[in-house]
């Protein structure tokens, strides 16, 4: 069964929210419906399905990796090449703290950016069905559906105020 994607363009967010509810009532599964917008809306504005993301894990894992690298680098080198100075402890904590902090932050930052790209599914080589009016403030309602149901989805979107409906080529 051939799949397609439809984009309904709404100037008024209320129309997009109504169209999303109507599509859900007509049996389009929530995971096949998405919203494109030029600025963020508070969660739940459109009554949309909130797909969970795990971005919070990336900085956390990055920080732990960085801390471990910093600890290994500093402690292991001092233990491998022990030079006791004036009877002081072998591990010099103050400079180790600086280095471990640097490594923790550096890795947390790198992992966060990787996480942002992964969780946002970026980079995208093709924009797919899209309209430049979205970055002007229009709301794009995306529906992924079998080819034979696209006419029904289009009718619903137009009925509830879509100015334009585009179909993926």
């Amino acid at each position: 069964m051939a799949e397609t994607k439809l984009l309904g363009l709404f100037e008024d967010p209320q129309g997009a929210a109504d169209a999303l509810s109507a599509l859900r009532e007509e049996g389009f599964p929530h995971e096949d419906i998405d919203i494109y917008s030029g600025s963020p809306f508070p969660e739940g504005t459109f009554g949309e399905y909130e797909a969970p993301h795990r971005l919070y894990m990336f900085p956390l894992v990055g920080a732990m990796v960085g801390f471990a690298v910093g600890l290994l680098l500093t402690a292991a080198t001092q233990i491998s090449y022990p030079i006791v100075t004036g009877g002081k402890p072998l591990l010099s904590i103050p400079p180790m703290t600086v280095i471990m902090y640097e490594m923790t932050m550096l890795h947390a930052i790198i992992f966060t950016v990787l996480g942002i790209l992964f969780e946002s599914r970026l980079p995208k080589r093709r924009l797919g069905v899209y309209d430049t009016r979205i970055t002007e403030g229009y709301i794009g309602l995306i529906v992924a559906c079998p080819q034979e149901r696209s006419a029904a989805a289009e009718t619903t979107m137009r009925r509830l105020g879509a100015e334009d409906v585009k179909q993926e080529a």
Partner: protein
Amino acid sequence: MHGDGHHEPIPDPPSHREVALDALAKHQQVTSAYWRWVLLLGALAVLGVVGFVIRAGDGFDEMKPWGYHVGTMAFIFSTFTAAPIVSAGLRLTKAHFRRPITRIAELHALSGLIVLLMLIPALRALPTLIGRPDIWFDFGLGSPDSWELVAMTAMLLAGVLLLWVVALPDLAAARDHMPPSARQRLASTLSMGWVGNLRAWRVHYMGSLVLGGSFLLLYPLIQTLFSSDFHLSLVPGLKDAIFPATMTLVGMQGAVATTIVTMFIVRRFGGYERYIGVDQFWALSKPLLAFSLLWFYFWWASFLTFWYGRTPAEVSVLQLLFLGPYKFVFMASLILNFLGPLLALMWNPVRRSVWGPTIVSVGVLIGTWLNSMRVYSSAASVRSEEVFGHYLETVPPVQWPDLADVMLSVGAISASALVFLLAAKIVPVISIWEVGEGLRLVKVRRFYHRWVRVIAKSH
């Protein structure tokens, strides 16, 4: 207000579409005045490189000739590079007024590249750590050079990635609306195919907070390393536990001042009066006043410790930094960083204007430059053989800048401004999506006899 006690109605805000098209049209425009500034700043930056070459000709064996180089580096770090603190802080606290000015602050993150480049020769000129009281405790393993560079690289990354991630939706807007050109292709590449779906916006929100938070967490670390390696450890007998915190605060004050001055320039010469209004200047003048008061508090806490101690080592430190050869420089920065802002910004009409906070901020920036020179140049002027001692035996005279110092300082500051100017034509200088989001959250309502703006919370 009318004579009958009724206030003027508040005009309806523009739509997202109007903002997007207007801001992108301004972004697209490259005037001849813009190119004149690019050429001027570029020429001054080249002059700075010549100044650096002359300075490098003196070699790296002595710290003394590098005092102004380090002072300039610290100045840029405490002003331009610190500016994203404003954006990250205001985004974390969800301040509504931030929307048109966050990008201005974030674009300054790129000046971290200038600091990183200046840090390499500065570290080369540092005397050996062995036998000198510092935070590295004869640690080895590339300290301090490698770890200062790693820390600065991490902060540069945090700032630049914050700028990029937050700007993704506006780069997509530039991709969509600019006519085909090299700039449009660059915007398209940098936008990475952003379409603004629900999941991406949620990730974008959290990611911008994490990166902003990382920037805020790294800034004090680097101020600590700079102040420890280039100031505290070079002046024997100088034991000031709160000095890194003082320099972090100086950076926060400098960040706000830099943002205000840039806001004024962008508003006045970039044609963004519609977006950057009195609200933004008024709101930022309050932390500026608070940081000016804290500037005095932190200085006073340090000064008083030495003043009451009065051991020979402490008297020498007081002479070197405050009461001796640099007393006029110190007095000037005391006036420009504390007294001036206090006396000006305590008045509501001054705070509630565009000119008031801008003039105070220019003063703060001059004061911060003088302060950086006093702090780092005086420390670098301590005789090499005294650096390893327990107290300062001879207070060195003022180290006046020579031609190479002036060229280097002017060139590096110009290069930081140039980087901003160039980047502002790649990334829109106004955060279109943030302004657009804000417009939806504001409604003008009648409230008994007047009109008020009601602002909704977005999260």
